[in-house]
C-alpha cells in the first residue's frame, strides 16, 4: 500500500466519489436513460480505479476495473440500466466502502467480492478475466513512473501526407495506438483538408489530427508511436499539462467558449471558427444560431454544447481547495483571541488620559472594522451547503423503503442553503431519525395510499432555507400524519397529560418525550420510543428548536430552526453581583423594570411577574448560579424577557452592560453539567463570562 499521505488523499477523495456515486446511482434508477448520469458514473468508477491503483489498493483497483467495464457497456448502450444493475452497483459501493472505511466484516469481504464479481460478469455476459490479465494495473496507472506522479497532457498535431496509404500506413491506427498510452480527451479532425465529396480521391489521405491526450508516460513514449512517420509527415508534440491541469472530476481548469466546445466536438475546425466569429461580429447574432443556420450543426448539437459550457462554468465556480477542518477551527480560535485582545485594548483606553484615549480608540476603530470583515470571511469559509447531507439520504430512503415494501421518493429542496460546518456535521443523525420515522410510521404502503386516493409512491421532502437570521430545515412527508387521538391516549396512559387536555400543540409535543411511542410493536426501524427525544436534544444542543405540524391522513412537517453559526453569537452582557453573564441576543425580546405590584409568588409556579397582562416565570440568576448580589428585590432589578419554544421567562439581572459579538468557547463537563450554560467567553479584561443557554434554562425551570 502507498505512503500514508497518499493513502489519506485517496481515502478522502474516495469518500467524496462514493457519496456522489451513490446519489447518481439512485437518481439513475429513476432516470434510466439519462446519458449524462451514466457518463458521470462511468467517470467516477474510472477515477476510483486509477486512484486506487496509484494508492496501492489493488483489490479496489481490480474490482472497480470490472465495474468500469460493466458501465462502459451501459454507456455504449449494450446493456440497459435495470434494477439488477442498480442493485449490483449499490452492493458494490457497499463492498468498496467496507474495504476502505470499515474493515469489521473482513472475514466475509472476499466472499462478497467474488459473489459481486460473478454478478457483474453475468450482467456483462462474459467470463471473468484471469488475475494475470488484470495484473498490469500498476503500469496502466503509471505507478512505475513514481507513486504520486501527476498526469501529463500532450497536444499532438499530426498532418499526414496524401500518399501515406500507399506505404501501408493508416493514420487512424496510429491515433488508436496513442490511446493505449492514456486517454484521448480531444480528437479533432481538420475537416477543411478533406475535399468536397465529389472531388475526393478515396485512395489519397486527407486526414490530419489535433489530439489532447492525458497520460502518465513521457513525451518520448508518445514519439515512439510516430517512429515510422515522423520524418515524412508533420508531427508536433507539445506538453500542455499546465494548461489542462485537471481538477479532480470537475473537468479542466479553463472556462470554454461555445466555439471551442464545437471544435472539440469535431463539428467545426479552428478556421471555421474564425470565420464564424467574424460573421458573428458583423451580424451581431449568436454564434450558435450562425452554426445552425449554416447547417454545420443541428440545434440539438448546439444545445448540447451550450449545456456543456454551462456545466464547466458551474463546476469551475464550485472549485474548492480541500482544507483540514482542524485548521479552520484553529483559525477561528485565533480570531477569537484577537477579538479578546481588542476588547482588552478598549479597556486600556478607558484608563488613559483624554488625548491618548482618543488616539488609541481611533486606531482601534479601524482595527475593529478589519477584524469584523476578517471574521465574516472566516465565517463564510465555515459555511457549507447542506445539499450533500440531504443527498446522502437518498440511498437510505431507497434501501429502507424497499425493506418495508414501500415506494418512497426523496425530494431535496434548497440544497444550496449554507450552514456552519459544525451544524452540518451534527445535523445528520437527527435528520436520519426523522426520515426513519417518516418511512416507518408516516408513509403508507402503496395499496393503502391508492385506496386513499393518493399517488402510489410517497414523498419525503427535505427542504432548507434561510429566514430571519436563522436556518430552517423542514422534513415533510405526505403520509398518514400523526394520530392526535393515538398520541393523546398514550400520553394520558403514561400520565403525561390530563384526560381533558385539548391543546393540539401540547399533545403533539408528547412525541418528544423520552420513551414515548404509539407503536406497540418494536421493529428494526422504529417503535422503541427512542428517536424524537434524541432529535430534540441534539437540535437543542445546536441551539436550535423543533416544531411539528401534522394533519391526520395528509402528512407531517417537522421544522428545525437553527442559528447560522455556532462559533460566534451576538450576546447581551449582563451583570449579576460581580459576575458578567451573556444572554444570546436572538432569544431576547425586551428588557424591562417591573413594579412591586406586578411581582407575585404563585403556588406550583414559584416567582412570577406580570408582563403585558401575562404572568411569566421569573428566574434569579444569582440563585441559579450561586452568585452574591446586593439587589434581591425584582422591582429594583432589571428583567430581561427571553423566549424559547414559544415559552417566555424573565431573567433577573443587576445591570445591563451592552451587547457585543461573542466568541463561544466550549467548557468541560467537569466544570458544569448545567443545561443552563452553553459555553463561555473571555472578556476584554481577561475575565471569563458564562453564556446562558436559554433552551436549557427553560427546561431546568420546568423540572424544578
Amino acid at each position, binding site marked *: 500500500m502507498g505512503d500514508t499521505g497518499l493513502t489519506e488523499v485517496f481515502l478522502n477523495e474516495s469518500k467524496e466519489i462514493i457519496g456522489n456515486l451513490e446519489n447518481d446511482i439512485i437518481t439513475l434508477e429513476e432516470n434510466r436513460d439519462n446519458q449524462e448520469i451514466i457518463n458521470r458514473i462511468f467517470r467516477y468508477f474510472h477515477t476510483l480505479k486509477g486512484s486506487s491503483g496509484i494508492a496501492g489498493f489493488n483489490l479496489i483497483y481490480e474490482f472497480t476495473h470490472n465495474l468500469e467495464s460493466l458501465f*462502459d*457497456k451501459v454507456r*455504449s*448502450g*449494450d446493456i440497459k440500466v435495470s434494477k439488477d444493475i442498480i442493485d449490483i452497483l449499490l452492493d458494490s459501493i457497499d463492498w468498496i466502502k467496507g474495504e476502505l472505511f470499515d474493515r469489521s466484516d473482513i472475514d466475509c469481504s472476499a466472499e462478497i467480492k467474488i459473489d459481486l464479481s460473478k454478478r457483474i460478469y453475468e450482467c456483462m455476459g462474459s467470463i471473468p478475466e484471469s488475475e494475470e490479465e488484470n495484473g498490469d494495473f500498476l503500469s496502466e496507472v503509471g505507478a512505475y513512473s513514481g507513486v504520486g506522479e501527476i498526469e501529463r497532457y500532450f497536444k499532438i498535431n499530426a498532418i*499526414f501526407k496524401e500518399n501515406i*496509404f500507399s506505404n501501408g500506413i*493508416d*493514420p*487512424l*491506427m496510429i*491515433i*488508436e495506438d496513442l*490511446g493505449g498510452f492514456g486517454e*484521448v480527451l480531444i*480528437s*479533432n*479532425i481538420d*475537416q477543411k483538408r*478533406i*475535399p*468536397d*465529396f*465529389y472531388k*475526393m480521391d*478515396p*485512395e489519397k*489521405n*486527407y*486526414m490530419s*489530427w489535433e489530439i489532447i491526450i492525458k497520460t502518465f508516460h513521457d513525451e518520448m513514449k508518445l514519439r515512439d508511436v510516430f517512429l515510422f512517420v515522423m520524418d515524412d509527415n508533420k508531427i508536433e508534440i507539445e506538453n500542455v499539462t499546465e494548461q489542462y491541469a485537471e481538477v479532480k472530476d470537475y473537468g479542466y481548469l479553463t472556462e470554454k467558449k461555445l466555439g471551442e466546445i464545437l471544435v472539440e*466536438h*469535431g*463539428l467545426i475546425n479552428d478556421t471555421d471558427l474564425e470565420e464564424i466569429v467574424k460573421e458573428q461580429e458583423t451580424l451581431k447574432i449568436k454564434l450558435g444560431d450562425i452554426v445552425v443556420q449554416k*447547417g*454545420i450543426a443541428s440545434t440539438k*448539437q448546439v444545445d448540447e454544447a451550450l449545456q456543456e459550457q454551462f456545466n464547466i462554468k458551474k463546476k469551475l465556480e464550485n472549485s474548492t481547495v480541500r482544507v483540514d477542518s482542524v485548521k479552520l477551527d484553529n483559525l477561528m480560535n485565533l480570531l477569537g483571541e484577537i477579538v479578546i485582545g481588542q476588547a482588552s485594548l478598549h479597556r486600556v483606553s478607558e484608563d488613559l488620559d483624554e488625548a491618548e484615549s482618543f488616539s488609541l480608540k481611533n486606531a482601534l476603530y479601524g482595527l475593529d472594522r478589519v477584524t469584523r470583515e476578517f471574521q465574516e470571511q472566516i465565517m463564510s469559509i465555515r459555511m457549507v451547503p447542506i445539499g450533500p447531507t440531504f443527498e446522502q439520504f437518498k440511498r437510505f430512503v431507497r434501501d429502507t423503503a424497499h425493506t418495508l415494501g414501500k415506494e418512497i421518493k426523496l425530494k431535496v429542496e434548497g440544497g444550496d442553503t449554507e450552514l456552519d460546518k459544525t451544524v452540518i456535521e451534527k445535523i445528520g443523525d437527527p435528520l436520519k431519525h426523522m426520515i426513519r420515522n417518516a418511512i416507518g410510521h408516516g408513509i403508507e404502503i402503496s395499496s393503502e395510499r391508492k385506496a386513499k386516493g393518493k399517488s402510489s409512491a410517497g414523498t419525503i421532502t427535505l427542504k432548507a432555507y434561510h429566514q430571519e437570521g436563522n436556518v430552517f430545515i423542514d422534513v415533510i412527508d405526505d403520509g398518514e400524519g400523526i394520530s392526535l387521538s393515538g398520541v393523546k391516549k398514550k400520553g394520558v396512559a403514561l400520565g403525561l397529560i390530563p384526560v381533558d387536555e385539548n391543546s393540539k400543540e401540547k399533545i403533539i409535543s408528547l412525541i418528544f418525550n423520552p420513551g414515548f411511542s404509539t407503536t406497540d410493536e418494536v421493529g428494526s426501524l422504529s417503535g422503541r420510543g427512542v428517536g424524537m427525544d434524541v432529535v430534540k436534544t441534539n437540535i437543542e444542543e445546536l441551539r436550535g428548536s423543533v416544531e411539528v405540524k401534522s394533519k391526520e391522513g395528509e402528512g407531517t412537517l417537522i421544522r428545525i430552526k437553527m442559528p447560522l453559526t455556532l462559533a460566534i453569537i451576538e450576546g447581551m452582557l449582563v451583570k449579576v453581583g460581580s459576575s458578567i453573564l451573556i444572554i444570546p441576543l436572538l432569544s431576547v425580546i425586551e428588557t424591562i423594570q417591573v413594579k412591586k405590584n406586578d411581582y407575585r409568588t404563585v403556588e406550583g409556579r414559584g416567582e412570577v411577574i406580570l408582563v403585558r397582562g401575562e404572568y411569566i416565570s421569573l428566574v434569579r440568576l444569582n440563585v441559579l448560579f450561586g452568585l452574591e448580589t446586593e439587589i434581591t428585590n425584582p422591582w429594583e432589578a432589571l428583567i430581561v424577557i427571553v423566549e424559547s419554544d414559544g415559552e417566555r421567562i424573565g431573567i433577573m439581572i443587576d445591570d445591563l452592560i451592552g451587547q457585543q459579538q461573542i466568541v463561544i468557547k466550549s467548557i468541560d463537563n467537569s466544570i458544569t453539567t448545567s443545561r443552563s450554560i452553553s459555553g463561555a467567553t473571555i472578556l476584554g479584561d481577561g475575565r471569563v463570562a458564562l453564556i446562558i443557554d436559554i433552551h436549557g434554562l427553560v427546561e431546568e425551570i420546568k423540572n424544578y
Partner: protein
Amino acid sequence: MKVAKEMSVKNVNNFYFSLREEVESSNHVVLDFSDTVRIDSSTAQIIISASKKVMELGKSIRFIGVSSELEKLLKLAGIKLQ
C-alpha cells in the same frame, strides 16, 4: 447501405462509389455497420465528406448497427454518431 466487415484502402473505392450513388439517389442515407468491425482513415474521410455533402443537399445521414468498439474508432476519426 451495408458497410463491409473490414474497411481499408483495398475496398475503399467500392465503398466510395456505392456511397456516391446512395447520396445522389436517397434523401435519407443510412449506413449499416452491423457487420463492420473496423474502418480505416480512408473510409473515415469519405464518411466525413459524405456527411457534409448530405447536409449541404438538405438530406440526412444516419449510422446504424454500430458496435461499441467501432463507436470508439469512429469518435477517434472525428465522426459523431447522429
